[in-house]
Structure formats: C-alpha cells, structure tokens
C-alpha cells in the first residue's frame, strides 16, 4: 500500500484504475437514471418535478463531501508535507465547485415549481452559495501563488477555515426556519427504515454512488496532470515526455 504513496507509482496505479472507475460510473448513471426517470412513480404532492432530487441531492452531498476531502487532504499536506495530499486538494477544488454549482442550479429549478421562487436568502441556500465562493476562493488563491509548496499551504489554510460552513449547511434546515425541506435520508438508520418509498430511495442511492465514483474517476485524471506538472524535473516524467514525442514522431 505504501508504495503507492510515491507520485510515480500513484501515477501508474491511477492510470490503470481510471478506465474501470469510468466504466462503473457510466453503468451506475445508466441504471440510476433508468430507475429515477422511468421506473419511479410520480410524487403524490410534487408530481414529476421531484425527479430533480435524483441529481440535486447527490450533487449537494458531493459538494460537502468533496470540500471535506479537500480540507482533510490540505491538512495532511500541511502537517506531513505529503505532495500527493496537496495534489488531491488542488484536484478536488474544480470538481467540488462545479458540483456545488450543479446543486444550486438544480435546486433553483426545483424550487420554482415547488416553492414558487428560484431563490430565497435562507440559511441552507446561502450557506451552499458560500461553499461555492469558498471553492472559487481556494482556486483563485492557489492560482495566484507560483511556488507549489506555498500555494498548497495557503490553499489548505483557507480550506480549513472554510470547513465551518459544512456543519452550517448540514444543520441549517434544523437550526433555522426555511423553505428548504429537511433531510429525507440524513442518517444510516433512515436508509434502513426510510421515510421515502423504496422505488424513490433506490434511484437516489444509485445516483449518489454514481456521483461518488464519478468524483474519484475525475479526481484521479486531474491528479495525474498535477503529478506530471509538479514532478516534471524527475527522470520518470522526462521519460514519459520523451516516449510521447517518439510515438508522435516529433522527437528524433
């Protein structure tokens, strides 16, 4: 296991895993969409508009999960100075930001027919919007600092400060009065004895796993790019660059 902590071995391992993870993601999405759009019945209150849940809820979950991964990896990089952890944090940010945006936009499109408005400045929506700005701030900060180690440290500190937003998002529907509905799942116990029908729960779970595996697929692709950039002075990266040029006929 430890041997994969070196960027060189991780690069190779990730390269082998990506096609498998990508295939699993695709199959899960197809199955989840089939269950969610084709098999699941309409909601007795919301009709078919509730089907937005199958992407909105996984996207919102992932927006928080990826942030915790980013802050956690940042902390590991900060304390133990592990390059791969820094790269995981950097690679996670754009994925997390885009899924936060997805949660906001799909939530807005669900809010209009359900609440009569695209947006309200309540605790849940505002704290999720803040999460989007935290991701953007992290990326802007890292892009502004050229030195990779200083860039990683600054990003990690920002991510760790911003992590207070995660419990605020999670508990916002409990702590404050809001239009946003409380969690339907929320805990493992609710999965075992859920408050929603299995025909609606199953597509939600499958789509959530699909988003989860999707994140790992994309983050590995991004980390491979980060590894090449930051390890460019090492012999093995030089070799990859040279072999690429040979096959393209650019290099004599």
């Amino acid at each position, binding site marked *: 296991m430890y041997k994969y902590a070196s960027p060189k071995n991780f690069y190779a391992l990730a390269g082998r895993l990506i096609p498998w993870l990508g295939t699993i993601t695709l199959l899960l999405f197809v199955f989840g969409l089939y269950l969610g759009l084709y098999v699941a019945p*309409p909601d007795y209150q919301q009709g078919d508009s509730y089907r937005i849940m199958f*992407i909105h809820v996984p996207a919102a979950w992932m927006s928080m999960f990826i942030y915790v991964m980013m802050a956690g990896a940042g902390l590991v990089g900060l304390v133990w100075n592990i390059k791969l952890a820094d790269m995981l944090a950097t690679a996670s940010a*754009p994925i997390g930001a*885009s899924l936060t945006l997805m949660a906001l936009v799909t939530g807005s499109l669900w809010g209009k027919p359900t609440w009569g408005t695209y947006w309200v400045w309540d605790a849940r929506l505002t704290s999720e919007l803040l999460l989007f700005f935290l991701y953007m701030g992290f990326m802007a900060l890292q892009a502004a600092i050229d030195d990779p180690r200083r860039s990683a440290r600054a990003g990690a500190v920002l991510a760790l400060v911003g992590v207070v937003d995660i419990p605020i998002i999670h508990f916002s529907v409990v702590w404050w009065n809001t239009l946003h509905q409380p969690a339907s799942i929320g805990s493992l116990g609710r999965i075992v004895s859920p408050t929603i029908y299995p025909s609606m729960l199953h597509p939600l779970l499958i789509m959530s796993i699909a988003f989860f595996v999707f994140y790992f697929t994309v983050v590995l692709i991004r980390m491979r790019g980060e590894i090449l950039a930051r390890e*460019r002075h090492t012999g093995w*990266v030089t070799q990859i660059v040279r072999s690429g*040029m040979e096959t393209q006929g650019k*290099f004599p």
Partner: protein
Amino acid sequence: MIWHSWHAFFAMGGYADYVWGAYGFATLVLFWNVVSAVRKRKAVLKMLRELALAEQAPKETGAQRYVSE
C-alpha cells in the same frame, strides 16, 4: 414502468422545463468535468514536450530554431 407514451415521458407531468433543464445542466457539468480534466493533463504533457524540444533545439539546429519557436 409508469409512462403511457414517450410524449408523456418528455412532458414530465407538465414540469418538462424544470426537470429537463436540471438534467441538461447536470449533464453539461459532468461532461465539463471529464473534458477539462483530460485536457489539463494533455496540456501539461504538451507544455513539457515543448520545453524539452526547446532545450534540445540549440544543440541540434542552433539558436535559430529556439528563437523562432
């Protein structure tokens, strides 16, 4: 199976704009993620290749090529 026809499926019980708008946006975001991640790695490789060529160039064809690139 709960849909009586393809038409009913696409109409989404009158919520077509919202449902398909949300699914369409989600699809765009997922595609952007894959495309930008793959492009990022290829861009790094391309940059490293050009750097390697630039280093190689003066030895092979003189400084002329280094300048022209």
